[in-house]
């Protein structure tokens, strides 16, 4: 049975609808009273909403986790992947920064001497099982690299190109026991031969028995015929110990290489030397010791009390 629809109900319905339309019209015309009413209602509701939010936060999190279980898991996986990528990027960035620093130093060194160099990244360390000290760089004959070219690090000599492949090259490090380089002492110009010993130290053998060497002397590459395998003037190392044994024909000593072979990242292969010998221009500056401040305290005994 349908509702009969008395006149009173219809009248009420019309009044209510008209009221609603009236409200809509007022609101669309921007009457401030209605905005104020809505704002007032929200002001009253907001403490309840805040309380509800505070109380229901754990429940909300639970419901959210349940309803978005798959999405949450995917999000966690995505965040994990992003995190791993960012970590890798950070490591790469640190690596790149270090390599950039090395490259800057190498270019400074090569630029001072006027060498033409090709930069290379170390892509592999040689196996120590072969008892040789080598690294593989990422450039080869395609980049103009040839056998017996000098290889520079940021601070000095790193080694010499031992083998060349189209896209890579094998560099014998200066620490290799079979590595030998003709050196001269900066300043005095005495000459000798430096041999690798498998560590950062090398053995120096002077050629002239009348000359002397002392601790701290800087060694530079003497250079080879046609600048291969060694271009002249490259810093090699400095003397850390001198052997004055009576039985020796000429003096010998121990040399510490400038290059840190444990941290090789970027190297430069000298493809052409300068037309003039750089002489001692590449001798690295001696480190200046940091002054240690001293404090002097004067203690004056107080006069003893007199009675």
């Amino acid at each position: 049975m349908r509702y009969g629809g008395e006149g009173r109900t219809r009248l009420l319905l019309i009044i209510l609808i008209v009221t609603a339309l009236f409200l809509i019209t007022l609101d669309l015309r921007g009457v401030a009273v209605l905005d104020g009413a809505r704002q007032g209602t929200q002001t009253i509701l907001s403490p309840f909403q805040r309380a509800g939010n505070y109380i229901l936060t754990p429940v909300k999190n639970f419901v959210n986790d349940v309803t978005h279980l798959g999405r949450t898991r995917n999000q966690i996986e995505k965040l994990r992947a992003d995190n791993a990528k960012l970590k890798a990027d950070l490591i790469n960035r640190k690596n790149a920064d270090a390599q950039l620093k090395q490259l800057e130093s190498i270019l400074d060194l090569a630029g001072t001497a006027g060498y033409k160099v090709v930069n290379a990244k170390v892509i592999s360390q040689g196996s120590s099982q072969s008892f040789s000290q080598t690294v593989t760089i990422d450039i080869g004959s395609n980049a103009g690299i040839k056998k017996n070219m000098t290889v520079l690090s940021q601070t000095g000599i790193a080694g010499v190109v031992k083998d060349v492949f189209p896209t890579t090259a094998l560099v014998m490090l200066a620490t290799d026991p079979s590595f030998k380089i003709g050196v001269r002492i900066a300043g005095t110009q005495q000459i000798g031969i430096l041999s690798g010993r498998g560590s950062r130290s090398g053995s120096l053998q002077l050629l002239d028995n009348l000359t002397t060497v002392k601790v701290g002397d800087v060694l530079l590459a003497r250079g080879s015929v046609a600048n291969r395998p060694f271009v002249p003037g490259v810093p090699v190392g400095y003397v850390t110990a001198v052997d004055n044994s009576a039985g020796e024909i000429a003096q010998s000593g121990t040399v510490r290489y400038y290059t840190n072979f444990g941290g090789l990242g970027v190297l430069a292969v000298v493809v052409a030397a300068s037309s003039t010998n750089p002489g001692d221009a590449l001798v690295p500056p001696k480190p200046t010791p940091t002054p240690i401040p001293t404090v002097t305290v004067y203690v004056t005994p107080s006069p003893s009390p007199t009675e």
Partner: protein
Amino acid sequence: MLTRQISLSAPIFLFIFLFQEAIVNQFKLPGGGFSLFVIFALVWAVISTPEIAALTGFGAGILMDMSGGASGPVGQWTLIMIIICYGVSFLGYGDENINGNPIGVVFFVVVASLFTAVLFLASSALLGVTTGSFGQTLLTLLGNSLWTLVLTPIVLPVFSFMHNFVFETRTVL
């Protein structure tokens, strides 16, 4: 009599409205969630006379218009709720298969809820209120109807009891 009914109904409506705003609205549920307040108003209207239903729609609509989340002008929800509440009550009044039967009430509430949303969309379009993409709107309509279908049977006994308490009717769903 009417004064007693209004004085009892008003706090109940206010409480449900407060519950909707402070508790239910805290949850971001899939499919757009549900409005307990709309369900309550529709249930109230279905089991009331058309006269009471129209007043119910008016009161409920005013409260919904006052909500901070209302996007349209004040009066939009009022108009919609008056029409819907009066309509469902008018169609079901006196028919025991509808307002005397829980299944009938649930069916009417779900359909009325869907029509409420559609009417809101239509009036919003007329009033120039942006309501989102068609796909999202469709999803919300569907989700809202499903939520209503699920929740109405659960809350119907409580709301019916309240209605019985206010109007002193003997039938409790």
